[in-house]
C-alpha cells in the first residue's frame, strides 16, 4: 500500500482515503451513491473548497491565513447590505474588494512588518469577525435580489451553481499555481525564500498577492453561502478557517512550504464533505462528527509525515544481507 501511495504524487494520496470512505459508505447506506446525494456532498463542500483553494497558495508559501472564515463572514454581510440599495454588480464588486483589501492588509502585515502570519491573521480574524458583528448588531441580513440568489440556488444543466463556481475557480487558480510565473514563484519562495530573493524574485510581492487571492476566494465563498441561505449570517465564517486548513493538509500540501497542489486541496475538501454527509446519513450524533473529522486529519498528517519512514522500513524488510555500517574491528 505504501509503495503504491508513494508512486502517486503526495497531493493525490487523499484520493485513496476518499475512495475508502466512499466504499464504506456505499456498503453502509444505500442513500450514499445517488446522483442527488453526491451533488449534495460537493455542494456542501464548495464553500470550504474555495477558502481552502486560497489557503493553498498561502500554505505553499510556508505561511498561514487564519482570517479566511472572518473574511468570508464580512464579505457575505457586506454584499447583503449593499444589495439593499444597489444593484447586483455593485454589490459583487464591493464584496470582492472587501476580500481583496483584507488579504492585502494580511500580506502587508506579514511582509512589511515581518509579523508571523499566524499572529497577524489571528488578529485580523478577531478584528474582522468583530467588525461583522458590529455592523450587523449580530442580526442576519436578508437578501431578496434574485440575480444574487441565483449564485447559490440556480442549477444550470442540473448541477448547482456553487459547484460550477468551485470547478471554475479550481481550474483557473489551479492553472495559475501550476503554470504561471507567479505560481512558480510561490513554490520557490515557499521552499527557500532566501534563494528566491537571491534569484531576483520579488518575495514580498508574491506573498502579498497570495494573501489577496486567499481573501478574494474567501469572499466568493461568502457570496455562495449567503446566496444559498438567502441571508447573510454574521457568524457564518466561524471555524471555517480550520476546515479550510484541514482540507489543504489532507490534500498533501506541506505546512513547511514548497510542496502541494490545488487538485489535492479539492480532494481534501470533498473528503471532508463526504465524511460529513456519510455521518449524517448514518445518523451519527453531530457532536461525534467533529471527533471523526479530527481523527481523519490526524491520520492524513500521520501518513504524510511517516510515508518516507514507512517505505524505508518496507524497503529494508526483504534485505537481510544489507551492508552494515559498523566497521569491523581492526585489532
Amino acid at each position, binding site marked *: 500500500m505504501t509503495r503504491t501511495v508513494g508512486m502517486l504524487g503526495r497531493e493525490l494520496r487523499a484520493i485513496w482515503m476518499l475512495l475508502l470512505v466512499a466504499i464504506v459508505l456505499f456498503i453502509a447506506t444505500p442513500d450514499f451513491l445517488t446522483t442527488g446525494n453526491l451533488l449534495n456532498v460537493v455542494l456542501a463542500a464548495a464553500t470550504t473548497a474555495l477558502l481552502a483553494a486560497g489557503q493553498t497558495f498561502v500554505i505553499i508559501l510556508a505561511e498561514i491565513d487564519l482570517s479566511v472564515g472572518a473574511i468570508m463572514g464580512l464579505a457575505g454581510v457586506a454584499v447583503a447590505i449593499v444589495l439593499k440599495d444597489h444593484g447586483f454588480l455593485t454589490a459583487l464588486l464591493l464584496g470582492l474588494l472587501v476580500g481583496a483589501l483584507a488579504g492585502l492588509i494580511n500580506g502587508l502585515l506579514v511582509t512589511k512588518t515581518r509579523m508571523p502570519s499566524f499572529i497577524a491573521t489571528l488578529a485580523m480574524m478577531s478584528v474582522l469577525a468583530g467588525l461583522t458583528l458590529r455592523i450587523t448588531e449580530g442580526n442576519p441580513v436578508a437578501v431578496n435580489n434574485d440575480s444574487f440568489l441565483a449564485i447559490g440556488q440556480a442549477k444550470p444543466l442540473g448541477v448547482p451553481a456553487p459547484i460550477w463556481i468551485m470547478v471554475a475557480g479550481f481550474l483557473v487558480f489551479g492553472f495559475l499555481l501550476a503554470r504561471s510565473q507567479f505560481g512558480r514563484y510561490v513554490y520557490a519562495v515557499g*521552499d*527557500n525564500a532566501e534563494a528566491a530573493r*537571491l*534569484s*531576483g524574485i520579488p518575495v514580498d510581492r508574491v506573498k502579498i498577492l497570495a494573501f489577496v487571492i486567499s481573501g478574494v476566494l474567501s469572499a466568493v465563498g461568502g457570496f455562495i453561502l449567503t446566496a444559498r441561505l438567502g441571508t447573510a449570517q454574521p457568524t457564518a465564517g466561524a471555524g471555517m478557517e480550520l476546515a479550510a486548513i484541514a482540507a489543504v493538509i489532507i490534500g498533501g500540501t506541506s505546512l513547511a512550504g514548497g510542496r502541494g497542489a490545488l487538485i489535492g486541496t479539492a480532494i481534501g475538501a470533498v473528503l471532508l464533505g463526504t465524511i460529513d454527509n456519510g455521518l449524517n446519513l448514518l445518523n451519527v450524533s453531530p457532536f461525534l462528527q467533529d471527533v471523526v473529522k479530527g481523527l481523519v486529519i490526524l491520520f492524513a498528517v500521520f501518513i504524510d509525515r511517516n510515508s518516507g519512514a514507512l517505505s524505508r522500513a518496507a524497503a529494508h524488510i526483504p534485505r537481510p544481507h544489507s551492508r552494515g555500517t559498523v*566497521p569491523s574491528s*581492526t585489532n
Partner: protein
Amino acid sequence: MRLQLDDIHKRFGENEVLRGIDLSVESGQILALVGENGAGKSTLTRVISGAHQPNAGVLIIDGDDVRFNKPQDAMGAGIRVIYQEFRQNLFPHLDVAQNLFVLDLGGRFGRLFVRRGAMREAAKELLLSVGLDVDTAREVASLSVAEQQQLEIAKAISEDVKLLILDEPTAALDETESGFLFEQVRRLRDEGVAIVYITHRLKEAFDLADHVVVLRDGKVAMDESPDVVTEADVVTAMAGRTVEDLYPRHTQPTDRPRLELTDVSVAGAFESLSITVHAGEVVGIGGVAGSGKGEVPRAVFGLRRFTGGSVQLDGKTLDIRSPRDAIDAGIAYVTPDRQAEGLALGQSVGDNITLASLPEFTSAGWVARGSQRAAAAKIVEQLGIRTSSVDAEAGQLSGGNQQKVLLGRWVLRDPTVLLMDEPTRGVDVAAKADIYKIIDEQTREGAAVLLVSSDLPELVAMCDRVIVVRHGRAVAELTGEALSEQSVLEHALESES
C-alpha cells in the same frame, strides 16, 4: 591522562577525510592543531569527542583502547569540546545559573522544585573560578560573546574535565578578551588538564602550545615543538599541496575593465576597497574568516548597502539596491551556502536552473514549460550535471551536482560579472574540476570573475590576481611570482595581535 590516536581513518562515502592520524596529548600539555579548511580538523575533533566513530584505528587513553559510540561516552572519560559555534549549546533565554546546571543529574538543587538560591550561589562560585563576574540571574542572551564563551568553559570544567578541546576559541573575541582566554587556558593546563587548541592564528599556536600539529589532507604533515620550527615552516606544511591537473586556467585576461569598485565601504564589514576586474579576468579575495571578504560580493549584488565608494560596470556607474537590480545589470552571485540560500531543494533541477530567468520564459504571465525545460536540459548537458532528468528534485542530487545546478542558474544568464563565494565548498574533487572548467569558460566569453575563497590552492591556481583582506582592509595585492599559498596566508594572518 594521556590520549593517543593510532592510525585513525574516517570516511564519508567515497570521501576519506582522515587518512591515518597519529598523535598524542597528555595532562599538562597544550597541543595546537592547525590546518587549512578541509584538512580534517573538525572531523578529528568529532572522532575524539565521540560524535563520529573512526572507520579504522584506535583511541588509547592511559594505555587502554577505548571506543566512544556517542558523545556521552567521551564525556564520561572526561573529554569536553568547546565548539566554535558554542552558542548553539547555550539556552539564550535561560539565566546564567540555569545554563550552568541545566542537566543537574544528581539533583543537587532539588528534583521537583529547584532551589534557585543555592543554584545561583554555586553558579557564582564556579564562574569566579574562571574569572567571570556576572549576575547569575542574567539572561544568557544579554552576555557578551566573550562572557558566553567563559560560561561555556565554566560549564565544561564544572564536571571533572581531563581533556579540553577548544575549536577556534578566539574567532569572535577581541584582543583583551583573547588575552584573558589565554591566561585561563594556561591555568587549566597547569591544573593538569590536557588541551587541544584548534586555531588558524599561528601566533596563538606558537605562544600557547607545547607542540604544534599540522593537518593536511587528513594526515599529520608536521608534529613539532614550537621551539624548533618557525611560523614559515608551519605555513609551508599547511599549504604544501601538489597542484594537479585540477585547475584548468587557460584564458588570458584582457585589459578592458569590467567591474570597478572604487573606495567602497560597508560599515562594520570592510573599508575603502578598490578592486578592478577586467573582462576575462579572475580576481580573488583571500582572508581569514571574519576578515570581511565575503561581504564584498554580497554588497555588489545588492544584499548589503554600500556606505561609501562607487561601483562601475563597463564604465557606467551602477546603483544597485536589490538582487533584481544586480541581475538585470548582468551580475551573478554564487552564494557560499547552497542549502540555506542557494537552492530550493524541494523543487526540480529545471526550476532551480531557471529560477533567476523565469521572466524570459514567460509571456503574459504564463510560463512556457517546453522552452523552460529545454533550456534547463541544455545547461544540465553543458555542465555535466548528473541527474535522472530536469524534473528530478534538486535535493536528491549529490553536493557537487547541486553546486553545479546553482552555477548553472547563472551560466544560463551569460553573466558579465560572476561573483563567487566558496564555489567549491563541500564538493568532491571531480565536481571541483568541473566547476573550475566552468569558471574558465565564463572568462573566455568575457566575464569578469570575483572569486572569494578560503581554499588557498584554488585561489592561487584560478586567480590572475589575489587581493588579501584583513580586518576589512586590503593589505596586499598579489600577482605573478608573488602569488603563492604562503604569501596569501602570511598576509592574511600577519600581525594579528
